């Protein structure tokens, strides 16, 4: 077990390093940079020397390899640089949005897991009954419907509904407040995007739970459990679900990592100041310093999520635990 964890942990570093090399050089392979965007973006004539000066100031004039060295060593001394657009420290800019995105992702995951595992299980147990058909329609719809579109529907529903019942339209608050400070207002803002994204998420996980459980229920050891006179409840809970959960947790992990960086449009719809929005802005501004750290953050989240999923695997499956 310890060997397994150690092996997984050791794999994280090279993965991150590989990602760092890729993102650093790919960003700079695209023509243009933040100075051109800022100075030439207005369409007016700009002095070439002025751009050079800007580059000098932001460190873009240094040889690439030196810039890369600064980028990497930045992690050692925990100096991730300043945004090339706003000039504020990257950590501060990301920190502002990270809380919000993390909370939405966690809430969506919670929604998904709480819905998906029981629903998928019931659907598998009652295969080909009306319950199964309802659940399958629910999850097909969830997969077919883009989250942002559901988001728009939710917003419209809120506006029309409150207009109808309260007389005045109500919109979720736009300002993020910490849930520890004002839970009600925090929830009023974030519950909607969590539901909008959680629906699709739970649809994917429900389908996975259903098909994995159906597969497991055909295994020989389930027949053994039946022959031993175990009740259906014990067969599902003790003998089947544990085996069926492996692929489900993989899906949950992948989706979670996606939620942390990929909610660009949904954030737009709900007017949330999250990681996705920051991503788009920094790419548009060719803000290398910001973009590369955002990419690294998303990579880190993906890697850590994978690691957690691997731990869950080991916890569920002794064949991995003792390998």
């Amino acid at each position, binding site marked *: 077990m310890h060997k397994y964890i150690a092996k997984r942990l050791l794999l994280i570093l090279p993965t991150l390093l590989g990602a760092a090399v890729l993102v650093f050089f790919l960003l700079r392979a695209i023509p243009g940079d933040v100075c051109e965007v800022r100075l030439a973006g207005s369409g007016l004539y700009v002095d070439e020397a002025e751009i050079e000066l800007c580059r000098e100031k932001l460190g873009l004039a240094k040889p690439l390899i030196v810039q890369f060295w600064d980028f990497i060593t930045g992690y050692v001394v925990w100096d991730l640089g300043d945004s090339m657009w706003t000039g504020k420290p990257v950590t501060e800019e990301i920190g502002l949005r990270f809380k919000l995105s993390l909370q939405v992702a966690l809430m969506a995951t919670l929604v998904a897991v709480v819905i998906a595992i029981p629903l998928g299980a019931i659907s598998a147990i009652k295969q080909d009954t009306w319950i199964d058909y309802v659940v399958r329609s629910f999850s097909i719809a969830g997969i077919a419907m883009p989250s942002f579109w559901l988001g728009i529907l939710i917003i419209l529903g809120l506006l029309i509904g409150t207009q109808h019942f309260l007389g005045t339209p109500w919109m979720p608050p736009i300002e993020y407040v910490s849930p520890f400070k004002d839970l009600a207002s925090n929830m009023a803002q974030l519950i909607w995007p969590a539901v909008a994204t959680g629906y699709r998420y739970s649809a994917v996980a429900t389908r996975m739970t259903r098909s994995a459980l159906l597969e497991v229920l055909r*295994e*020989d*050891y389930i*027949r*053994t*459990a*039946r*022959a*031993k*006179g*175990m*009740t259906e409840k*014990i067969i599902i809970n*003790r*003998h089947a679900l*544990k*085996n069926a959960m492996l692929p489900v947790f993989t899906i949950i992990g992948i989706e979670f990592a996606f939620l942390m960086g990929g909610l660009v449009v949904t954030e737009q719809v709900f007017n949330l100041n999250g990681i996705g929005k920051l991503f788009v802005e920094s790419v548009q501004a060719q803000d290398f310093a910001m973009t590369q750290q955002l990419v690294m953050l998303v990579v880190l989240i993906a890697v850590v999520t994978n690691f957690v999923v691997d731990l869950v695997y080991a916890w*569920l*499956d*002794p*064949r991995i635990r*003792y390998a």
Partner: protein
Amino acid sequence: MATLLQVRNLTTQFFTSSGTVRAVDNITFDVDEGETVAVVGESGCGKSVSALSILRLVPWPPGKIVGGSINFMGQDLLEMSNDDIRRVRGREISMVFQEPMTSLNPVLSIGLQLTETMQHHLGLSPAQALKRAAELLEMVGISEPKRRLAQFPHHLSGGMRQRVMIAVALSCEPKLIIADEPTTALDVTIQAQILELMKDLTKRLGVALVVITHNLGVVARYADRVNVMYAGKIIEMGSAQQIYHQPHHPYTLGLLASVPRMDQPRGTRLIPIDGQPPDLTRLDGGCAFRPRCRFAVDRCAQEFPPLENIDSGHVSACWRVKEINELKNAS
């Protein structure tokens, strides 16, 4: 000995897109207390399905028991409620399956898989169940039972897993164990050990055993009685002695000629049965063995022969059962 299990006209079919599979067709047999009955026949002749039918474990869909009765200790298993049949499974009648590699749950410890039946059926406390589990492992010849209880199936070899399955089957002191090809997946030296163990334990504990196999040679040593199945039907039934030394059905003759025997000189030629077993979706009213039978006559195509009495407890379903001895010697 009193009769423990009476199977009467049991019929199980699978309703598939390519037709109705008549997997078990009107079979009737008894199992007495403490005796060992072997069920033999080629692959696909309905041995497993008949075993699963006894505990109502045939998966629906597509499989369904469509007729017959199974009397076990005065009760019809086919008429019982689901809750009642669950109290028979693993408690009064246990099963050992063919595939030791896949029949144990890979994510649950040996200890849990052994104790859960005892806790469930006998109401033992976890501590009592664990103690008895260790004794059971010892009994089936597994060393260091305490340590094994904490291990998982992948830690054990195939033979050891089958010993665990036997321990599970014995754990609630059932009246009957049904073993579906318990040794087919194991290598030859282990096969003998496992069969020896099962024979020894069932005799010692007075448990009746139905052992399914397609190796008639193996059976003679372990069984009291033998049921020979072909295409979903029992076509010959008798004591192991009778089946082994006076087989009366052409199919049984064929089976015996196709396996090596202890009572014949080494080097005796083995003769496989020509042809393939029939497709169980396309059976007609005649004897299903006739396309492969050396002795077939016109009548075999028209009517299925009834089980004819030959000797006490020895029956065979063949139109030419009276002449079979002359026919056998002539050919």
